[in-house]
């Protein structure tokens, strides 16, 4: 009560490492929402009591008024914590798109709740349509590379038959080395499926 559970929810967010998501705690979330309803009911009960005594609700400052005030402030505080929880998670999800690309890996998808997955998909679709209208790929590295091709070693089995941007198919078996265009390799490297070989 009185904002403690809501603060616990926010602390959970803070406890994860920077940029990492914790699993969506829907139990605690719903508990906080239930607390809000409870605060609201108690607030209404106190206001009703004041009205029954015939006092002017707007101006009287008696004990019930202060109790109602405390309930109201707790409600607003709960709202703030819930909003901050959802907002910060949404921001992290937005940045995910830029770091990892349009496909959500399994381990991250389990941490998101259903509306958040929808949010990611819609955001990614919006970005794709924007990029296709501009005919510009915004997700590549901002610094122009010295060499358009890089050497990579494949860390995980991606499979074969992957079509690259110059319409060739490549077979990405594990531990094989390839000489690829930078733009193709970047998305695999950021997902951890390949590594760059330097020197």
């Amino acid at each position, binding site marked *: *009560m*009185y*904002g*403690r559970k809501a*603060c616990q929810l*926010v*602390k959970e*967010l*803070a406890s994860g490492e920077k*940029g*990492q*998501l914790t699993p969506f705690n829907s139990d605690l979330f719903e508990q906080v929402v239930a607390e809000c309803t409870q605060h609201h009911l*108690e607030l209404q*009960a*106190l206001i009703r*009591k004041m009205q029954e005594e015939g006092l002017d609700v707007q101006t009287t*400052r*008696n*004990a*019930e008024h*202060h*109790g*109602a*005030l*405390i*309930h109201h*402030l*707790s409600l607003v*505080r709960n709202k*703030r*914590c819930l*909003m*901050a929880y959802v*907002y*910060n998670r949404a921001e*992290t999800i937005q*940045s*995910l798109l830029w*770091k*990892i690309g349009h496909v959500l*890996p399994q*381990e*991250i998808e389990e941490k998101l709740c259903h509306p958040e997955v929808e949010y990611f998909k819609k955001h990614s679709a919006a970005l794709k349509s924007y990029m296709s209208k501009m005919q510009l790929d915004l997700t590549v*590295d901002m*610094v122009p*590379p010295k060499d358009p091709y890089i050497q990579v070693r494949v*860390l995980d089995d991606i499979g074969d038959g992957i079509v690259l941007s110059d319409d060739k198919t490549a077979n990405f078996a594990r531990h094989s080395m390839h000489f690829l265009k930078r733009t193709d*390799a*970047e998305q695999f*490297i*950021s*997902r*951890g499926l390949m*590594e*760059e070989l*330097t020197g």
Partner: protein
Amino acid sequence: MTKYYEIDDIITEEEIVSVIFQKAASGVGIDPSSETNYIETGSKVELPFWLAHELQLRQVVSINIPPCFDQKTRLEIQADCASVDLRSRCPFFYEFGCKIAPVVGDRTIGFLLLSAFKNRYKEVLTKAHTAAFSATTKFWSILTNEEINLYEAAQSSMASFKKWRIGGPRFQKAPVLGRKRKSTQ
């Protein structure tokens, strides 16, 4: 209001302060020591700062100085700032101090924060740039959150500088994916 969504701000405001109720309040079970839902005038209650602050604006309570700014801490800070364990007192020492100062009406808090920060900042920077890993963990436990942010910023700038000199790969696995595999180099 610009800090509405900031997590650190929310956690800072959750710090407990002890207040004295100037007026009575009924229908609230916030005081764990009283059996009824009624708070008497003059009773001393521990409230989170966000509640105490709002109630003080409406003159329902009066706030006492929290224990992390009391005389004992002040003497310790004057003696040797760099080794005072601020984290156990209050992990958001500076932010909390800034919020408390106008409310409690104590002018010396500002000077206290400033002098503590100045002296500790030097230590933070030197340790961030030079210390080996084993020494840092003990030092970390006495820093507040603000100081830790500075420390990490300094360390990451050192790491980027070294990387630029040696020339590592520009592209690495996105850090958000966790530690299942070590990132390249």
